[in-house]
């Protein structure tokens, strides 16, 4: 088990958002976390990545407890988080952003390899290597953020709403790259609102509603589940 969450509570100050969440992700899996707006999907990812301290429960990553650990230490453990707001360094060039992504990687050969892989995955970024991240378009920003995540050679990648605000064509491209990444051996935990596409891409999924996990199972099974079909797929 690469990531294991046991009865996690989390939230912002007095406002508790997550109630007793338990989920697990295996090495090499592509797991999705879906649910309506405000269900606590992003909060889950933030808590795992250490940006938000948990209020209870346990988070185990590769057997070590990472609950309450600071964000940068979680990252050093091998967890990359691509947030909804992307959190790019807008006044740095694309290349510098990617280099910052590899901040935790000490081996320069490995850095170079990662960079080449990112450019291979997103040739557009290579074209804009020396452009400021702030001047990129929406789709490019997404690629930039994912690329930056890849740079740290993570074992687990948490991706938050990659399709938000993107044209369908670009969304497909992003999903495709995530799949490539997964095939290359990176475990992915994806949060999405585009349930149809997500269930097609992922191997397993959890459904989160009002801060609680209501359903989980193989993606293909869930796609045929009545509840899911009615609420998320609209048929």
């Amino acid at each position, binding site marked *: 088990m690469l990531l294991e969450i046991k009865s996690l509570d989390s939230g912002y100050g007095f406002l508790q958002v997550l109630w007793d969440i338990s989920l697990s992700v295996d090495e090499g899996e592509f797991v999705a976390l879906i649910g309506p707006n405000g269900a606590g999907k992003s909060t889950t990812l933030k808590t795992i990545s250490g*940006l938000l301290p948990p209020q209870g429960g346990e988070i185990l990553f590769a057997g070590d407890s990472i609950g309450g650990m600071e*964000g940068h230490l979680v990252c050093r453990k091998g967890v990359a988080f691509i*947030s909804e707001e992307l959190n*790019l360094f807008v006044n740095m060039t694309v290349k510098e952003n990617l280099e910052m992504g590899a901040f935790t990687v000490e081996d320069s050969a490995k850095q170079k390899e990662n960079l080449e892989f990112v450019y291979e995955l997103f040739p557009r970024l290579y074209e804009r290597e020396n452009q400021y991240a702030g001047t990129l378009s929406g789709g490019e920003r997404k690629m930039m953020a994912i690329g930056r995540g890849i740079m740290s050679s993570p074992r687990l990648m948490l991706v938050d709403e990659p399709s938000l605000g993107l044209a369908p064509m670009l969304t497909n491209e992003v999903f495709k790259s995530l799949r490539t990444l997964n095939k290359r051996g990176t475990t992915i935990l994806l949060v999405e609102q585009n349930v149809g596409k997500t269930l097609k891409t992922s191997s397993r999924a959890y459904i989160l509603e009002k801060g609680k996990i209501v359903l989980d199972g193989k993606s293909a099974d869930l796609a045929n589940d009545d509840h899911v079909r009615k609420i998320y797929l609209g048929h």
Partner: protein
Amino acid sequence: MASAAIEPTIDESAIDKVEQTIENTFVQKVVRWVFSAAGITICLTILIAIVASIHKGPYILVNTIITGGMWALMAIGLSLLFSVMNIAGFAHGEYFMAGSLTAYFVMQPIGKYTLDHPESFITYVGPLIAILAGTFMCAILGVITERLVFKQLRIRNREGWLLNCFLITIGLSVIMQNGHQLIFGADFKGILAYWDFPSVPILGVYISMDRVCAFFIAALTMVGFYMFMMFSTAGKTIRAVSQDEEGARMVGISVDAVHIMTFALSCGLAGLAGASLLFMFPSYPTVGVMPLYNSWFIIILVGFGNVAGSIPGGFMIALFQVLTRSYFGEGWEAVIPVLLISLILIFKPSGIFATKVRTVWDQ
């Protein structure tokens, strides 16, 4: 920190084309810069400096360049503190004071030694040692303040951070001023000169060796600072934190360590300014007030958190002050430049080189 909103996707290739045609040649780039707000003000400043120098004498230009550099150093530190940690420092003048105090105590024995051995190489190197000592002392002081005060606040209360920090720095300034007085007394602790050589004539204006050296120290530091920020990993992490703290955490940067580094750097720069200007500002408890005001004028003029803008800003403030002194008389430099900055603020409410990154300054 709020990052820029995600733009809706429109036809991206069209924008690319337009951008490419605009950014074609270097000359066109320069022309575009000249007609930007920053370009206009900088060109205008240079023009005014030249005209006034022809009218009143070259001392205006020389004076602007020489004092501007040091104010710019102070302002860079202040600006850095703001853009990385969102601390609007009011105690920066006190680090200036601490720098000059340390340099004074280091320079005392060195001065005595060189008096007996005027030919020794210490005559040339000694002052540099004093200045470096001042810088390091302030860097250490900065780290101590960060750990003892701001770290504590960050752990406990992040609400109203900007204002609370502002008030805390006011308190720090009061403490350091009076601490200096209690421990070292209120007398003026000054030196005669760092490098006691005859003045150098530049453009018909005589300038002491100390001033020339102070200018070169400022210039070198600025270049060094730029290199550090642009090309070193440490500098890049500082920039990363200033642009997006969450993002920095996500890529594994220890924000805590960056805060320490920033404080050390920022206070070190103030200490450097204080130490290198000791020949002009003897150390006493309230010596930092004027430099503090000047650096505040600068960062307000160029826009909060605009670190690079502090450099032209420093020269602009220096020019403002020289001009007011020359044309209105002594004492007015406290009034007219301030009114002018206020006027600029009315038309450019976030400074001339308004920053592209929106930080949380308006909370």
